[in-house]
């Protein structure tokens, strides 16, 4: 009901009252950069209130953008105190200390003392292991943020040996490999042969520098391949279309533009790289040799 004007005034009055009463107010603006859109009325009023009266208040902006303070308008920036605090990813050593702190059981817990001792000894021995250093390094190579480490530790604990209730190096290894999963490779793994054919055909088309192609073009390519090699995987048009739709659902391919036309004639794009495709064909045991050859051969064409 009240306009922003009224609310601003109310806020300023409130701030003054709290200032008189020696009560401090802390405003935390999360995703601070989103407040910097538009005319920045909110930021202006807040920061102006900070400096125009004896209010005891603090504004803390939290953002993941480094250039968040550059987004401020000139008159807002002038009111901003220019105090910046960067949260850098922690070093490997401090991460290890964090992990120790998180994994060690407290001495005075309600668990049996013997178990606590044994568990802590095991964890310590794992931490001093050389292999563990390797795991930690490969973990921090990709992402050294605390949330990443926490996710990792959660998996480690989930891989705990349920009989003994102890952690082992194996649980760390398992956790690392589960962190390293490549979702696209995984979904490539369990594609049917026909779907792989379609992907390979699309890849061939891209290699032939067809800038835009659709399902009909792909079918033409598929037919020509079938004609050349006379494989047993010659499927009808409708079956192929169902496989095509399946690929769309898995987001391995996508339409180039959103609107218009029947599905068969809409231009499509491949979303996986040739490297990934080749690797998945190599790993797929049921994949016919022809497919490998098709992918390899056109590389030298």
């Amino acid at each position, binding site marked *: 009901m009240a*306009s922003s004007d*009224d609310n601003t005034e109310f806020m300023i009055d409130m701030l003054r009252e709290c200032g008189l009463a020696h009560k401090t107010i802390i405003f935390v603006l999360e995703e601070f950069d989103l407040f910097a859109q538009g*005319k920045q009325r909110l930021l202006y009023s807040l920061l102006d209130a900070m*400096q125009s009266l004896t209010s005891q208040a603090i504004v803390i902006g939290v953002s993941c953008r*480094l250039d968040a303070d550059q987004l401020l308008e000139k008159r807002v920036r002038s009111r901003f105190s220019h*105090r*910046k605090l960067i949260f*850098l990813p922690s070093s490997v050593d401090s991460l290890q200390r964090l992990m120790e702190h998180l994994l060690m059981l407290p001495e005075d817990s309600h668990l049996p003392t013997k178990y606590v001792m044994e568990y802590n000894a095991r964890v310590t021995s794992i931490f001093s292991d050389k292999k563990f250093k390797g795991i930690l390094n490969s973990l921090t190579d990709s992402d050294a943020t605390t949330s990443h480490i926490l996710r990792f530790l959660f998996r480690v604990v989930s891989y705990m040996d349920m009989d003994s209730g102890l952690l082992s190096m194996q649980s760390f290894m398992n956790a690392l490999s589960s962190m390293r999963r490549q979702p696209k490779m995984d979904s490539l793994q369990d594609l049917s042969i026909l779907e792989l054919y379609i992907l390979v055909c699309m890849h061939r088309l891209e290699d032939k520098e067809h800038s835009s192609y659709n399902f009909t073009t792909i079918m033409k390519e598929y037919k020509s391949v079938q004609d050349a090699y006379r494989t047993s995987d010659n499927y009808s048009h409708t079956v192929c279309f169902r496989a095509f739709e399946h690929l769309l659902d898995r987001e391995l391919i996508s339409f180039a533009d959103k609107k218009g036309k029947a599905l068969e004639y809409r231009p499509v794009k491949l*979303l996986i790289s040739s*490297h990934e495709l080749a690797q998945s064909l190599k790993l797929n045991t049921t994949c016919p040799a022809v497919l490998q050859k098709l992918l390899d051969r056109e590389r030298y064409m």
Partner: protein
Amino acid sequence: MSPATPSTVRRSLRLLETPTKVPSETPVKPRPTPKRKRAAPSPKTPIQPEPKRQRRQPKKRAYYRKVVYDGGEFAAGDDVYVKRREGAESDADESEEEMCRVCFRSGVTVMVECDVCLGGFHLRCVRPPLRCVPEGEWACPYCTAERAGKAIERPKPPEGKRIMRTAKEKLLSSDLWAARIESLWREPDGIFWAKVRWYIIPEETAAGRQPHNLRRELYRTNDLGVIEMETILRHCYVMSPNEFKDANDDGDDVFYCEYEYDINWHNFKRLADIDDEPETKEDPSDEPYNAGNEYDSDTDEDSEYDEEEEQTKCSSAGKNQAHELAANLWKGRIYGLQKIGIRKIPEHVRCHQKTELEKAKATLLLATLPKSLPCRDKEMEEISAFVKDAICNDQCLGRCLYIHGVPGTGKTMSVLAVMRRLRSELESGNLRPYCFIEINGLKLASPENIYKAIYEQLSGHRVGWKKALHFLTEHFLGGTKVGKQANKPIILLIDELDLLLTRNQSVLYNILDWPTRPNSNLVVIGIANTMDLPEKLLPRISSRMGIQRLCFGPYNYRQLQEIITSRLKGIPAFEEQAIEFASRKVAAMSGDARRALEICRRAAEFADYRIKQSGHTSMNRGKNVVSMGDIEAAIQEVFLAPHIQVMKNCPKFGKIILVAMVHELYKSGLGEVTIDKLAATVISWCHANRELLPGYDTLLKICCKLGESKIILCEEGTKHKLQKLQLNYPSNDRNYLINISPDS
């Protein structure tokens, strides 16, 4: 306690009230005195002994939350009638119940009130008789007839019986006052006093009664007074619009209050919602405060009181200038701590002895208003000359001044300082009275709302912006004037003027057009950052605005130095060179005074921290000051680009990706690269260096993370291999990265 006395005397003089009665009972017991038979005979006796007594026993004043006095229970926050003068209207003829205007009997049966004449009528006395109280507005047959232009004779009271006037009528015909009790206390001599906030009726405002004013409308003022409890008559109920809506049959003493009236600037402010909050947070101790508490509340009250006094009673000459500055900043609107319900100031805050550095930090706060404003004398001179020129002439010519300058050069502050100075001149009678309206463009919801804001401050009435525009146009074009202050010049200060720019620029046109009209009596002062705002506007607007301009250039280092030193006067916390260094740095960057003060304050914090770290304070005087090193550290922090630090601490693959990106972009000469190509490069490099191969999806994830922090700009991750990437920082920063990168 001494500041309280002048007003006590003054207000009492006005009331012609006498201090003869001394209630001797304890406050919580009801007083069995007969009601309203205490008309004190000795008039016109100013209270002389009061101040002396206070000086003798300064701390024996007891504050109460609730006082039972003369048969009524009064608490802080209650609204009451206050007697305006003694003996003018004998107390006896007041009736608490209203009489019917037809049968002239007050009875138990339901009465209905006419919305026009406020007379009461029995339901059955009205012709035709009413069955129940009608919904919505209702006017009595007499008023309806009068409105229709017919002459009709109202029933006359029977012989020997006069129409008794109720307190409400007396109030509305300004024979009584209404006030809100802010605090209650008993003086050492046993007399009960109350500090009250006055209400005024629309007729008493500068604008006069407006057609939109309701019959029962009152305005709250920012005027506080100290009165004796003797003068309080009984309760009335002043309600906010919402409460008033619900108060259907709460009796006769119900009033409506929506606005606060500023008795100095003669403008209106809508009451904030604070008043609606029930005062539940009050601390539960209902008893008189103990000594410690009392001291607290005393100091509060007094400081508040001082300012209020300075603010409202400006007729007295010889005021302390600094005080007035402090009070004016708030425009005198002080609600008092009671609103939040915190009276106790923490012990550690009160008893803490400030060190030099802490004092310095406090004075460097942007919020603290400096005692003097150095370095803007010329500009202030010009502004005040402009305003005086505009309002001193008998015929106030409309004018317009455009003030521009980069942020932090003291534009708004100077104008406000000039206005304060002019107001003190006004009080000493050298200047014609005028009305000052301040509006900030960024605090309006939309440009058009400025009409609403101006009109509301002028008239105390809130209408839609179209209607407000209509009224204002009429006002300035010489038609019907808004309010009584028709010929008073109006000074309109618009901060952040550029925000009022609309597509067809009609808002700016209207506002800048009014001053050019004869008899508009309007002076517009616009403030904005851009120098060429008039040139960006349509020619017909710039011709109206661009004639008189005032530029606030960025401060040079000497001025900044002077500003800082003047603030730190008497506090030996900074080295001379340190201040000079800071001001030179800031002057070279932006000349923003806010920035300079902020840097100094940060440096003081650094110094404070350093001293606390070293453990011994105040042993060595030379070391306890802010040095060059501290300033340097503060500047480092302010001007440091964070991205190099972040890039240095990237995970390894993040660094590799950045280097590969620079490489790819350099090779292709384009501005962007797809993740497909980038990943191929990264993987080939890792292959060559026998690194563990990262998966495509891992690389994609890292790219998205880098994109989050805007080191690189990237499209959303759902585009997979088609995602495009761009660098967000100059690539030589990244070349620097290559040097520190472990591989390649």
